[in-house]
């Protein structure tokens, strides 16, 4: 089952396309990192997936074909928006009761136990809690709904490193215990590199990369060799990014076995593993997708690893 599927999805605000031509499919069971610089369209994509925004073009469906925003979709998705919006004048206990009343299912014992464990007093107003506590409260409310898909928009932005660790531990525990799929956005990849096993990369409103992290890492290489031969070497691969120094050139290339263009590493060149951060940076810096197609670019009709 795909927890998120979009086809030709686009959202236009006034004359600006916040997101365009986005086609992807995220299978269940992953912690998906949605990354991209500020203004890349991450929040827009999430809003479209939870039904807060109406698409200008294309369509989004969730949880195996439910239209985004439909009753079944709302029932199975828990969304924590950016800055964890809570009613500041309501107490944590009231927020809990409110969420229970607004949903079919709500695991109150779980929520109460978690708040107790986190040391969040039920009588304290949500607006008086610290940023980390507010984020944890919002996450607890979302998880107590026992969703099948948890969508978190920049949940780590307002947390200190310790709170980030606690927050991610909660998310990982829910994944392990409950099998919930997670989509989590961030403009900084570093803290997700070790936990995310699926990556969606957006840049300037366009999908750049979508795929399982292991597949992406396996299908990319950094080739290092003499700068003089860089052009001839580059001709044989799909180069995502080329960095040339005086003597040496570093080429980040797409070199998976399925690509007929890629051959063995030429003599005098060395191949290295690529790190996720290098890969993301390279795709973000790559000028256009027409010449340097990523694994799942929409102009390419090949479904590749994205839409399995």
């Amino acid at each position, binding site marked *: 089952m795909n927890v998120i599927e979009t086809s030709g999805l686009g959202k236009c605000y006034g004359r600006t396309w916040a997101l365009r031509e986005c086609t992807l499919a995220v299978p269940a069971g992953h912690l998906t990192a949605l990354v991209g610089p500020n203004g890349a369209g991450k929040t*827009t994509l999430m*809003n479209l997936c*939870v*039904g*807060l*925004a*109406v698409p200008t073009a294309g369509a989004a469906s969730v949880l195996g074909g439910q239209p985004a925003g439909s*009753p*079944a979709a*709302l*029932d*199975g*998705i*828990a*969304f924590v*928006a950016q*800055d964890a*919006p*809570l*009613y*500041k004048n*309501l107490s944590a206990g*009231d927020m809990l*009761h*409110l*969420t229970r*009343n*607004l*949903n*079919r*299912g709500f*695991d109150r014992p*779980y929520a109460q*136990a*978690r708040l107790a*464990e986190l040391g969040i007093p039920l009588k304290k107003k949500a607006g008086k809690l610290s940023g980390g506590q507010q984020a944890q409260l*919002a996450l607890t409310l979302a*998880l107590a*709904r*026992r969703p*099948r898909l948890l969508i978190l928009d920049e949940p780590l932005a307002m947390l200190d490193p310790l709170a980030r660790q*606690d927050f991610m*531990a*909660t998310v990982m*525990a*829910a994944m392990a*215990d*409950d*099998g919930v799929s997670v989509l989590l956005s961030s403009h900084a990849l570093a803290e997700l590199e070790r936990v995310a096993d699926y990556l969606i990369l957006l840049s300037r409103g366009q999908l750049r990369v979508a795929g399982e992290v292991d597949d992406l890492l396996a299908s990319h290489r950094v080739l290092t060799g003499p700068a003089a031969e860089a052009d001839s070497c580059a001709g044989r691969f799909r180069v995502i990014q080329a960095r040339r120094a005086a003597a040496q050139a570093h080429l980040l290339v797409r070199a998976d076995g399925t690509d007929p263009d890629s051959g063995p590493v030429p003599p005098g060149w060395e191949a290295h593993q690529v790190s996720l951060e290098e890969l993301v940076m390279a795709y973000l810096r790559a000028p256009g997708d027409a010449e340097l197609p990523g694994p799942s670019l929409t102009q390419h009709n090949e479904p590749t690893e994205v839409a399995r």
Partner: protein
Amino acid sequence: MTVLTMPAPPSQDAALRPVPWRRMAWVTWRQHRPTLISVPAVLGAVAVFLWIAGLKIHHDYAVLTACHPFSSTACQTLNSAFTSTDWTMANTLNIFMNLAPALIGAFAGAPVLARELETGTYRYAWTQGFGRERWTIAKLALLAVAVTAAAGAFSQVFVWFFQPFLAQEDLTVFSATVFATHGIAFAAWTLVAFAIGALAGMLIRRIVPAMAATLAAYTGLALATWLFLREHYPLALVTSNPNIDSGPFNVNDPWVLSTWYTGKTQWTRYIPVSRFWPMQFVEAGWLLALSVLLIAATVWLVRRRAA
């Protein structure tokens, strides 16, 4: 950090029944407690004041009407006391009455959606299982019923309080500042003000500008009704009786809309006081229809427009 084990999720093939409507009763109560307490509390406090002051006024008025002969110095003293002291207070309260629906619309109606949109909490509320159209319908309906009921009950106390001043101040039930505060019109105007506020809040998305827009829109509608609309309710009669509105002022005088001549016959188009309730039903009827339309438009906007 210890982590709690979560029970298995509910079976997914169970028919998806929507969250029951009744759950919104607590939600609305908890989130709008200030409105739901302060509107009845303020109106209740004023009603108590009207009741206490009204007893004295009714007493003064009974003494005044029993005073004979009316031209005597003693009676004239009573009369001037009544029209100065008592009427000054009643007139002030009458002005407040004519503004009250607009204030209720601005303070109770406008923030309902504007606060969610301004603070960003709509991103929480509209992504819960309840569904945002149903959430909007339930909230607006409950709050509308509450403020309309409070206003309707309050206006009955005011009608009783104000009754002695009609004859004394040459007012009839059709006078501009009287008609809208009497009968069921006050409740209907409160309802429409609330609906205007809710729609303004959804359109403008900020509390203070939405409140200002509500006051402006309500005032425009009330003025237009008073100046142009009310006389066209299809309840007027035409008579050739030239004495329909002659002689000294009487509280039962009809509302004369126009007079014209054909030959020597004087025709008068008028609405008799006996048609007060039909007039009230026409006014309340179209205000109710307009309110339903405004709330439906608000729900439609919530459904259509987002983020």
